[in-house]
């Protein structure tokens, strides 16, 4: 027994030696991390007295993040990431007098230390909180309280320690929606809305004594009516149907005062867009900026007689009112931005009282069209000692980017928050240099005779010589350049140089499509954004409850002179039809005839995929299936080529609404392509829903067609390329099960051949629940789930084999394939919660595979596939040792060497993308979610490159010494022999 344990321990140890970990000096050498916060919802400038204003900004975002960003370099000072989903949603961010308070998940009130981000206190609201919770803060001078309004009561909390001082219960909580809490000098107002009937305003003092409760009729008020608090004590609502603004003064809640903007003389085409916000842009001022359209603003001032239009700002996209405190007076300054041309933004300053322009503040700002329109403007304004006005302004744009503008109009920094919404990633090889391309051209063509090859060789060598001289001349001329232009040229050159393939093809272009409708091109070496496009009309598909954008690389870089081509496919925001955008993934240039916002297709896309075969132009076509079962292609011209492969083309769809999986063939009629349904599988919608469909990656190479067993026979892999894994989840409806242990969750895993609709394998896991993450590669499937019964995370592994004989060694057809492969399976315990998984991929598929697991703890963990091998024997024998399988133990080891992002925690990892590098041993990894992390992994160690610490010099010098020594001794020996002969 002891001996066996020893053997087991030794084997595991031997395996672990294959895990490559990082040395300390390698940190950051080939990995990088970028941290994001998401789309900003609330933003405050730091106002700590003494330290000066605006060193930091505090933001809360759609991604359940609270963060402080340093304004001098855009770095994150601190960041808090809350749970995903509604539980961690930052409902409200309040900042006053250096007190930072958030309302999280509707029931947690937390005060944070604004400098360090430490939690000072937390208050947990009792009771049911489906309805929103809001809060408001008072100044320190007025007692320092937090008033929290939940759906059931109004709470007064102490600002210093978060203790509950008092509670006022609310009336009619069944019908009333208490949504707004306001405060004046001494009074707290609570506004509750009864939709379609009335509004109640309750006033209490700061000690929790109810002063009054009044009802105001408001029959027009609906659930979708937009309301907001303006000027501290006013509630401003907008009724979309009648296009009327209503104003209610909480201090004197008699009635809503209606105001129509038409009466005020504002003309516009469409009614007010729904996403107007005023709370942020009207801090402490009398007026409010209201957005009427994407590029139309109005400044309104609440008065006793309703709203007064202070200024109409057509063509302006974002505005901001700042109160400027001069010596003894204060005045309100309006800053607004206007797009003057596609690449520039004009910032204008107005004196609000007089409406006059302040020419000092006018500024042109460089604003590329890849940001869309500015959405919001926040900033600070100050008067310098010499009387000049200075400002710092932050612009939030349609593409979720944040940028800081200085007085000089320069963009100090930018944060591309769209990258926190990454949906799809592809990595594209960079092009080889021109000379190298010529070389490849030289050896690539077979038809050439010797003479033409010779001339080609001469030509390439002449061009090489030419470039060398050109480079030399440039080097010599470089010194004469003006320093400024030189710098610019240098930058340009650097970019150009960067975009060439390196020796091992480790440097690639990362193409990222985001849910914000933005497409990025990023260098994999540095993580710098090299190009970007904003597609205002693009929105992701909604498939199986998840956002999905399709990103395909139609043509790589290896088909010179044809440029590479990529395509992003999504849904048009307005029409719901398909929306397509084709571009060059290396340069970011648009494909010919492509409008800058992409094209809207004429049909609703039901399914789209990339063809496996290339046409004469080396282009892989994209095939679309529309909701009328008609088949379209992009580009259209590919249809001619498609004719030849039509007979081998199949399409399948999975519908989670009907629970049906359908397979189609494609046929041609009257020059149009149609899909014809040939099979369908009913996955019983009543009992379970389809949650995942996982195909294999098409670019995956499988080097070894089988597996060598201990007795040296071969177990051939079942390598059906058309197999998909379908996961369905459901709840068991057995009566006794539900009464005893609550709902019994289960999930099913189906392995389905999508050509003939044959269910190859089916596994059912009872008393388990998702989220399930699946890796599907080669002939194996690894999936993780949560076992309700054992209350732990488990992983299961399946491998499919044809057996000891290969049915057809040359080709695989689903029609004649072995119907029932031999499936082996084994389950393991994984000690940590998993958010997503994937596997490494290498150039030729020779290297062992690692499973890369993103843990909820923020780590990326690589587990050698050998640990998840279903052939791991329970008791090791001679034969299994020969085969090299590790003896089975139910626990999967999590050793810290396998964590490839060492201490760089990644929050909310949504997906991991792996790409092969030019080196067989190496696979490139990009993990995305809230953060983006790129590194490379070597699952079988770096067997094809000498290590960095390889002692070239020692070996060379030893060799040289050996040569020298042998030479010298030869001479010596010869001399000795001669001497002896003379004796």
């Amino acid at each position, binding site marked *: 027994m002891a001996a066996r344990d020893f053997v087991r321990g030794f084997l595991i140890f031997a395996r672990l030696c294959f895990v490559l970990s990082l040395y300390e000096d390698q940190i950051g050498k080939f990995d990088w991390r970028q941290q994001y916060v998401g789309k900003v919802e609330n933003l405050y400038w730091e106002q700590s007295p003494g330290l000066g204003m605006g060193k930091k900004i505090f933001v809360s975002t759609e991604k359940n993040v609270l963060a402080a960003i340093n304004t001098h370099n855009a770095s994150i000072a601190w960041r808090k990431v809350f749970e995903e989903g509604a539980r961690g949603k930052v409902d409200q961010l309040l900042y006053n007098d250096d007190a930072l308070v958030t309302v999280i998940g509707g029931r947690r009130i937390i005060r944070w230390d604004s400098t360090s981000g430490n939690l000072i206190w937390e208050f947990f609201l009792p009771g049911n909180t489906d309805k929103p919770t809001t809060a408001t803060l008072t100044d320190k001078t007025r007692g320092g309280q937090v008033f929290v309004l939940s759906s059931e009561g109004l709470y007064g909390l102490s600002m210093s320690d978060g203790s509950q001082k008092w509670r006022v219960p609310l009336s009619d909580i069944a019908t009333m929606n208490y949504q707004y809490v306001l405060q004046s000098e001494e009074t707290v107002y609570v506004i509750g809305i009864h939709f379609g009937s009335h509004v109640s305003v309750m006033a209490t003092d700061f000690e929790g004594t109810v002063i009054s409760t009044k009802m105001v009729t408001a029959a027009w008020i609906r659930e979708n009516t937009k309301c907001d608090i303006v000027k501290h004590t006013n509630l401003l609502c907008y009724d979309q149907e009648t296009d009327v603004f209503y104003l209610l003064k909480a201090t004197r809640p008699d009635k809503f005062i209606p105001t129509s903007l038409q009466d005020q003389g504002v003309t516009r085409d469409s009614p007010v867009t729904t996403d107007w916000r005023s709370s942020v842009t009207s801090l402490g001022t009398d007026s409010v900026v209201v957005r009427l359209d994407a590029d139309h603003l109005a400044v309104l001032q609440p008065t006793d007689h309703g709203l007064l239009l202070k200024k109409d700002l057509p063509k302006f996209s974002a505005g901001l009112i700042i109160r400027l405190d001069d010596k003894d007076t204060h005045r309100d300054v309006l800053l607004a931005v206007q797009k003057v041309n596609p690449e520039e933004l004009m910032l204008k300053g107005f004196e609000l009282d007089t409406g006059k322009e302040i020419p000092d503040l006018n500024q042109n700002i460089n604003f590329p069209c890849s940001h869309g329109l500015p959405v919001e403007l926040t900033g600070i304004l100050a008067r310098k000692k010499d009387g000049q006005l200075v400002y710092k302004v932050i612009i939030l744009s349609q593409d979720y980017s944040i940028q800081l503008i200085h007085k000089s109009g320069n963009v100090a920094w930018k944060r591309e928050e769209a990258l926190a919404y990454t949906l799809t990633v592809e990595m594209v090889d960079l092009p080889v240099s021109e000379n190298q391309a010529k070389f490849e051209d030289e050896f690539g063509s077979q038809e050439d005779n010797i003479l033409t090859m010779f001339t080609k060789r001469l030509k390439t060598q002449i061009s090489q010589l030419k470039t060398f001289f050109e480079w030399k001349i440039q080097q010599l001329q470089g010194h004469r350049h003006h320093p400024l232009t030189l710098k610019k040229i240098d930058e340009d050159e650097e970019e150009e140089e960067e975009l060439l393939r390196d020796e091992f093809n480790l440097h690639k272009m990362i193409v990222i499509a985001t849910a914000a409708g933005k497409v990025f091109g990023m260098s994999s070496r540095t993580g710098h954004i090299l190009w970007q496009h904003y597609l205002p009309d693009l929105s992701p*598909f*909604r*498939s*199986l409850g998840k956002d*999905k954008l*399709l990103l395909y690389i139609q043509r790589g870089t290896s088909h010179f002179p044809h440029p590479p081509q990529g395509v992003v496919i999504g*849904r048009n925001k307005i029409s719901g039809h398909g929306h397509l955008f084709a571009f060059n993934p290396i340069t970011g240039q648009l494909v010919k005839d492509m409008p800058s916002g992409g094209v809207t297709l004429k049909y609703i*896309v*039901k*399914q*789209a*995929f*990339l*063809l*496996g*075969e290339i046409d004469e132009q080396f282009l892989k076509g994209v*095939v679309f*299936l529309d909701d009328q079962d008609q088949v379209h292609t992009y580009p259209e011209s590919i249809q001619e080529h498609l004719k030849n*492969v039509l007979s*081998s*083309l*199949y*399409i*399948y*769809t*999975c*519908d*989670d*609404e009907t629970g049906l999986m359908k*397979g189609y063939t494609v046929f041609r009629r009257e020059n149009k392509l149609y899909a014809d349904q040939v099979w369908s599988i009913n996955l019983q919608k009543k009992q379970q829903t*389809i949650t995942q*469909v996982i*195909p294999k990656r098409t670019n995956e*190479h*499988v080097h*070894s*067609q*089988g597996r*060598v*067993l201990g007795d*040296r*026979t*071969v177990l051939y892999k079942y*390598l059906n*390329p*058309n197999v*998909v894994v379908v996961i369905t989840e459901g709840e068991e409806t057995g009566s006794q099960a539900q009464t005893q242990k609550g709902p019994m969750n289960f999930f099913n895993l189906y392995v389905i051949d*999508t*050509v003939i609709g044959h269910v190859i394998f089916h596994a059912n896991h009872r008393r388990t629940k998702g989220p399930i993450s699946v890796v599907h590669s080669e002939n194996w499937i690894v999936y993780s789930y949560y076992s309700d019964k054992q209350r732990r995370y488990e992983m299961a592994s399946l491998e499919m084999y044809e057996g000891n004989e*290969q049915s*057809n*060694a*040359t*080709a*695989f*057809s*689903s*029609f004649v394939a072995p119907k029932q492969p031999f499936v082996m399976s084994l389950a393991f315990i994984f000690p940590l919660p998993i958010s997503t998984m994937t596997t490494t991929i290498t150039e030729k598929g020779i290297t062992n595979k690692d499973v890369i697991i993103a843990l909820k703890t923020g780590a990326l963990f690589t587990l050698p596939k050998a640990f998840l091998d279903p052939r791991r024997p329970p008791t090791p024998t001679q034969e299994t040792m020969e085969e090299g399988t590790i003896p089975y133990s139910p626990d999967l080891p999590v050793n810290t060497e396998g964590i490839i992002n060492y201490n760089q925690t990644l929050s909310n990892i949504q997906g991991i993308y792996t790409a092969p590098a030019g080196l067989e041993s190496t696979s490139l990894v990009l993990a995305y979610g809230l953060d983006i992390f790129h590194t490379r992994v070597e699952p079988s160690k770096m067997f094809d490159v000498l290590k960095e610490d390889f002692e070239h010099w020692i070996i060379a010098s030893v060799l040289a010494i050996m040569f020298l020594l042998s030479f010298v001794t030869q001479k010596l020996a010869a001399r000795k022999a001669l001497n002896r002969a003379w004796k």
Partner: protein
Amino acid sequence: MSKAKDIRRHKWTIDFTGVYRSKSEKQLVPSERYVAPYGYSDSQVSQGEHASKEPDSAIIAKKSWDIALGPLKQIPMNLFIMWMAGNSISIFPIMMVGMMFFRPIQAFIAIQNTFKMIEGGQAPLQKFVYLLGNLICLAIAVYKCHVMGLLPTTSSDWLAFVMPQKRLEWSGGGAVL
């Protein structure tokens, strides 16, 4: 040389050959003075042709058989070494196997010379036995390789050359978008 001659003409020297004697003295003359030693016969022994040849050919045959059976005699030794060496692949077993291959192959290379040495009436048989012995040695070596798993005899040895299967159907799709 002359010096050496002088040295040899020592007073104690008894010259039996008569090199330094005169021509007449050179012939060894049987002297009456000396009695022939026992067992010495003056008369020339006439040896029959057939009588002398019989044992000669026997010796040759014996010698030839020695050569012919040499490889066969090594077999038990080889087997023992093989058994001792075991089946693991490490430096010593490999050296042993190498030696076992080396010897018969060397023998095959030098087979012409060896065959020249084998004479006599049984030569064809002996040559055959010699060849057989070496072949058996070689076979044992090959068998040893096989046992050690060094021969590409199983399908697993050719697995690396199996090409990936060509894909005949293309299927694409997924969840309804």
